[in-house]
């Protein structure tokens, strides 16, 4: 059977259901005391790696997270889902919001040199930054082929056949290994870590290092000048029936 090794990335982000608040200094968003979880797309990435391992296509899953001490919780979740060991690239608390996609991609490129995986799977985008770049950046740095917005991944003979969700529908491509993939939400349905697996995960190894240990300069390239609330959209009126709705739309010139 194939014996691929997979490197998967995960990011600790503000939970998707939380209503965020802009900080009074207008340079970011309030994160203290706010619920954080694993980026939803990264759950799909880890789930895909675990399924490939269950199918005996993959023999080892290494999960990586870049962030403050609390990122270890995110790594533990991935380990509980089925990853084998973790790497925590730690940055001082409070500086994690300065970690931008290009720096992350460079960190991953160094880890790829070290770990020599056959596949790297990342989430399509982080729901805080919404950039959708890291996979593409990493693939470019490594000069590996990329399969972004993946909703189906099949392995055979040193290649991956990937179905991508594109603007007009779907497209199928084939990439030679080694390759970088970004997981879209419909790639799979991520499992919940069971209690026995959470307990087992405590024994799995997490290696710690800093960006400096990898020789990567994570100074942000993009300077955030300001973060503000979007224009507020006030709620309008309720209309009692379809007839009223249609006449309002006619008034506004829509019909």
């Amino acid at each position, binding site marked *: 059977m194939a014996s691929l090794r997979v490197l998967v990335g995960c990011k600790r982000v503000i939970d998707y259901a939380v209503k965020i608040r802009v900080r009074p200094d207008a340079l970011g968003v309030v994160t203290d005391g706010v619920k954080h979880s694993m980026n939803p797309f990264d759950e799909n990435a880890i789930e895909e790696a675990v399924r490939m391992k269950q199918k005996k296509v993959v023999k080892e899953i290494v999960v990586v997270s870049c962030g403050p001490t609390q990122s270890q919780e995110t790594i533990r979740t991935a380990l509980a889902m089925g990853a084998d060991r973790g790497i925590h690239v730690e940055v001082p608390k409070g500086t994690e919001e300065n970690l931008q996609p290009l720096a992350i991609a460079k960190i991953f490129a160094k880890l790829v040199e070290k770990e020599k995986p056959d596949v790297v799977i990342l989430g399509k985008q982080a729901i805080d930054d919404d950039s959708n770049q890291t996979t593409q950046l990493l693939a470019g740095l490594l000069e590996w082929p990329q399969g972004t917005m993946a909703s189906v991944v099949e392995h055979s003979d040193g290649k991956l056949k990937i179905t991508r969700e594109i603007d*007009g529908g779907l497209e199928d491509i084939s990439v030679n290994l080694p390759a970088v993939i970004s997981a879209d939400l419909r790639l799979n349905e991520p499992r919940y870590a069971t209690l026995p697996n959470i307990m087992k995960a405590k024994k799995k190894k997490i290696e710690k290092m800093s960006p400096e240990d990898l020789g990567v300069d994570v100074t942000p390239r993009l*300077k955030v000048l300001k973060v503000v609330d979007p224009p507020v959209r006030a709620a309008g009126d309720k209309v009692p029936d*379809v007839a009223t709705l249609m006449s309002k*739309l006619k008034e506004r010139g829509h019909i």
Partner: protein
Amino acid sequence: MLRYAVRRLATPALARNASTLLLVEHDGVAVNAATLNTVTAAGKIGGPVHALVAGDSCAAVAEEAAKIPGIEKVIVAEGSALKGNLAEAVTDAVLAVQAANSYSHILANGTVSGKNILPRVGAKLDVAPISDIIGIESEDTFHRTIYAGNAIQTVQSSDAVKLVTVRGTSFDAAPAEGGSAATEAFDIGGVANDKSEFLESKLSKSDRPELASAGIVISGGRGLKNGENFEMLYNLADKMGAAVGASRAAVDAGYVPSDLQVGQTGKMVAPDLYIAVGISGAIQHLAGMKDSKTIVAINKDPEAPIFQVSDYGLVDDLFKAVPEMITSLD
């Protein structure tokens, strides 16, 4: 001397040395509508705009691109290696053109296609790309949304080349006619790709307006209960000349294909009229449509969050209301 210096300072440095390479999105037959919005964005940066048409069959697209006002030159990079718009090959074509002409800005649509390609270019140029801009403050400072559109970020790049993907709904579309740019072939003989292969595309075929640029969008959510019930929305859409969209829940449940998804991780739309049918209004869905001019919501739950952003809210059973709407338009 002093007066001259003051006048120089008073003139914005914008555009003095700016020049933009704009990656035209196309399918070998026509220019993608979102490219017209990106042309407008390029115009705001200032300086000449050169449109790059890369692909294995470019002639018709290049001709169309040359007619867009605001484009000074169309650069055609044609070759079989560029079949299927694979990022590995298109990136190399962009890099070759950039190496030859040293643009200060490289722009692409904030679509799946543009987002797939531009960051890969960024890696090779060692530049931090800026995703999905909604505004341009100056040639190095841009606005974009974060946290599903719940905050707006102003970022400044100090990179020598600015790589930017543009959210189409935030810029007016340039006219499709009126320009007459020169067309120039660019030799990408050196571009080859043995790492990936395009197999096939399964595109949704429709006579309806394209979702991302339609003036009216009617979207269905989990409340529709199944794919057959979407037929009702298609009928209403046909009466109104509208496109049909969907919430993530409806796509996940298999009611409609994925390219209908409106939201943070799907399409961003900003039509004149957005009608949300059976959609609760999760933050992630609102991210994709809250810039619509008029929002109508139809939902039987009066507490649905969608009513917090709708201009007109109808608390009703959609299976009663939508047929009534269709009848009223007969």
